[in-house]
Every structure is written in structure tokens, then in C-alpha cells.
């Protein structure tokens, strides 16, 4: 059963700037709904935007840039970062 495979797996999801305002929340603990434990799967599960994330939106796992298909493990901090505009 798919659900049992996810038992106990919790990912701390964080949103910033325009993504945070569009959704109305900044962070929450999320249990992956499927065995696909990747940033892309959680992006789609949470309905954060189009299934194919917009160009310029990036991902960080435990405060380091990561790819959309990087594996997530229990306790990871996952952040979705809208296009950066510093300096």
C-alpha cells in the first residue's frame, strides 16, 4: 500500500516572497502522498502552480540549491524559491 510506504516521512516545506503570498502560507510539514519523494512531486501535491514549474522557480533542500528530481528524506527542509532579485 502506497500510504504505508510514506509512514513517518515528514518534509518541512518553506515558501518565499511571491510564492508565499500566492499561497497564503510560509511553511508547513508535509507528508509525501506517493512514493515519489522529490521537490517536483511535492510541488504538484501542494498545487503550488502549474504541474510544470515556471522557469526561474528554484528548489533548495536543507538550504542548498537542488534539482527538481532530487530525493527527499525524512526531516528535510524543502524550499521553493521564486526568481531571485538581489543586489
Amino acid at each position, binding site marked *: 500500500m502506497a500510504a504505508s510506504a510514506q509512514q513517518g516521512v515528514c518534509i518541512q516545506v518553506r515558501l518565499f*516572497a511571491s510564492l508565499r503570498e500566492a499561497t497564503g502560507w510560509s511553511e508547513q510539514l508535509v507528508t509525501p502522498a506517493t512514493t515519489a519523494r522529490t521537490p517536483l512531486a511535492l510541488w504538484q501535491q501542494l498545487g503550488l502552480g502549474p504541474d510544470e514549474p515556471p522557469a526561474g522557480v528554484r528548489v533548495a533542500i536543507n538550504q542548498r540549491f537542488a534539482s527538481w528530481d532530487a530525493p527527499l528524506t525524512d526531516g528535510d527542509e524543502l*524550499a521553493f524559491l521564486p526568481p531571485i*532579485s538581489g543586489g
Partner: protein
Amino acid sequence: MADGPLPLDGPLLAIAVEPAPFDPLQSLAAWHTKLAAALGDLPAAESHFIGRVRPTAAGGEALSALELEHYPGMTEAQLHTLASAAAARHGATAVLVRHRVGRVLPGESIVLVAVAASRRGPALRCCQELLEALKHEAPFWKREWLAAGSSSWVQGNTPL
């Protein structure tokens, strides 16, 4: 050993995310004092970039303020990573980065990058490369607040 320059095994990095206004010239003076204490003499070449908030928004309207959001922890770590990599690539001796967060008013300094090196080439190239890197690779987000009270998130960076 109480006196004399400290032994160095890499570039001297001074990185700060600033929630309050800072004076870039005072920052440079304080940095020089620390560099002189660590190195004995200041390096022969030094380059600086000071970025200030424009009085107008991207659309040309009068700007009342910029709001700078960041990712506490990751932003500082990423600035360190970028500064360390740029300094190593160009053989720079020391790098200073100060970057504002929070509400920043037109005319206020938003970023200061300074690089000290043995020659002008590495100092200038490292400074420009690091500035471009932090604009694209350090998690900061700008929101423009207009005089009328509306606001919008800035998408991307201004042209070089």
C-alpha cells in the same frame, strides 16, 4: 601570539546581511582596520561596488521603498560560498560583502562588495563577478512599494 599578522590559509571573508541602514564608507574603514590587523599591510589593489536604491520603480513610477526578503541561513551561507569561490578563482586576498534586507529607502545603500588583491585585474574582475553572482545565486527577493501604496515583486535583475 598576541601581536603580528595572523597566519592565513585562505581569503579573508567578511559577509553580513544587514537589517538596518549601513554607511558603506564607514564599513570600508572598519574593514581596512581588520585587514591591516590580519595582514600587517593592506593589499596593493582594491575595488569597491556600492549599490543604492533607485528613486523609480521598474515601470518608471516614483518608488517609496524597496522591501528585501531573504532566506535566513541559506542566504548567508550562499554569500560565503560565492565569495569564497570568486576569491579563489581570482586569487583575491580578502572580500567584504554587506547586503541589506528589510525596508530600504531610495538613496540608501543596498549592497557593498569590496575585494582586496595584489593587482588591479583580480580585484576588479573578482568584484564584478561576485556582484553578478550574488544577484542571481543568493536568495534575495525585492518588492517595490510605490508612493500610491501598491507593491509588486521584482522579476529578475536590471540589465548590467
